[in-house]
């Protein structure tokens, strides 16, 4: 896909509610009779395949290609900004709280800054969003207003360590996904350093509330390995462990960080294959 088609794809991905929000927000920026980027958005939306030449001609930019490029860029950013305003994804809401707290600090309104950081800390701990959690805690510490007790449960160092060990599980999962089809890799994988390391850490983390991601990637990695080794009953146990984990943290699906999508996909895959395995035995 060419970079020039990014705007086209973005426009085509918009829902009705998103389009309405963009139209509402564009009223803030009307100069003259019409809003140029709204016109561009509507023209692109009419096309089934992106034809930039036709749009340039229709909107009269043939001799002002730079202006057209600027308009396109502006429109793209405006759409993204309005999508951001509408979004209720939890991590976005935490980031907003941190940014707003920063603004309140700038206004020397320390009480509200503290309140917003406290809300960000509470949400980050719920979603185990380590970097956001650390960021909010670091700034909150500088405000001379007592923190609520529930937000003091985990010191920054503890969260940093949880974040660091989380990446070992993330790494294991990536490694397993990349190489699970290689027989030589799979054969003795449980004896390998990477697998043993994370297993020890997993035990260390098992009594805390900070290890959702650790466990998720661990069960996924093991599930894939067992499946690749055709040890389907073991793979199924890992699928069940994942299921239990999701039942304990049902709100985590809202976080939508990259491979979180893959979690359900992989679990479904493991279960499906187990069903086939079971059927073949009967």
């Amino acid at each position, binding site marked *: 896909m060419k970079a020039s088609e990014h705007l086209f794809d973005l426009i085509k991905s918009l829902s009705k509610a998103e389009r309405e929000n963009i139209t509402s927000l564009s009223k803030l920026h009307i100069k003259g009779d019409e809003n140029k980027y709204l016109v561009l958005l509507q023209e692109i939306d009419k096309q089934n395949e992106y034809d930039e030449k036709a749009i340039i001609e229709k909107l009269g930019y043939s001799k002002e290609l730079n202006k057209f490029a600027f308009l396109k860029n502006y429109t793209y950013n405006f759409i993204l900004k309005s999508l951001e305003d509408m979004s209720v994804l939890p991590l976005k809401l935490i*980031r907003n709280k941190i940014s707003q707290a920063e603004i309140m600090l700038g206004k020397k*309104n320390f009480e509200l800054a503290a309140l917003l950081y406290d809300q960000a800390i509470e949400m980050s701990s719920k979603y185990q969003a380590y970097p956001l959690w650390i960021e909010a805690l670091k700034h909150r510490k500088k405000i001379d207003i007592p923190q609520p007790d529930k937000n003091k449960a985990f010191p920054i160092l503890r969260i940093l360590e949880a974040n*660091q060990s989380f990446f070992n599980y993330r790494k294991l999962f990536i490694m397993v996904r990349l190489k699970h089809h290689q027989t030589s890799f799979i054969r003795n994988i449980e004896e390998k350093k990477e697998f043993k390391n994370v297993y020890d850490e997993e035990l260390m983390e098992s009594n805390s509330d900070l290890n959702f991601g650790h466990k998720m990637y661990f069960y996924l990695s093991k599930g894939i390995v067992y499946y690749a080794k055709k040890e389907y009953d073991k793979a199924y146990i890992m699928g069940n462990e994942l299921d239990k984990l999701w039942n304990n943290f049902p709100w985590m699906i809202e976080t939508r960080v990259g491979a979180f999508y893959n979690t359900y996909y992989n679990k479904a895959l493991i279960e499906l294959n187990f069903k086939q395995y079971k059927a073949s035995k009967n």
Partner: protein
Amino acid sequence: MIHHAQLISLIKSLTPSEKGYLKKLFSVHHANQFKHDFELLEKEILDQEKINNTKNGIDYSELFDFVLNSIEDYHKSTGQDARSIMNQIEILVDKNLYQQADKQVNRVKSLAVKDELSEQLIEVLEWEMAMLAIKAPTIENERKFESIFDQINETIKKQKDTL
């Protein structure tokens, strides 16, 4: 829950231009109730003695969030920009627009490196990793994963050192 006094404190801290922008947004979003409540609170602030403390049982969270979300656009810092682009990455990935998301990843990464925003750097590296995981499992991509993990470890080490 946001109390009356907290909302009053927020409104008092707004500049005239922030208030002007906010009023524009009330009309754009047809937020007539918010507009009405906001104007009442402004009047209360003008006449300090009349600040109605009996309203402390009411939850003002929605108006509070509306005001804060609106003034966010008015203030720019590298940290805010990076957080905003990070939000956009999440939205673009949600729409399966990976190339566009990739572009935003690079933008945040350079902001985070330039201004030494370690938390944002960790976050964006995780996104970079997630996007790389969608691509074909080549040796080159494996090397890229290794390099991302090295950057993450290095950044966390720095974070620990600064504690």
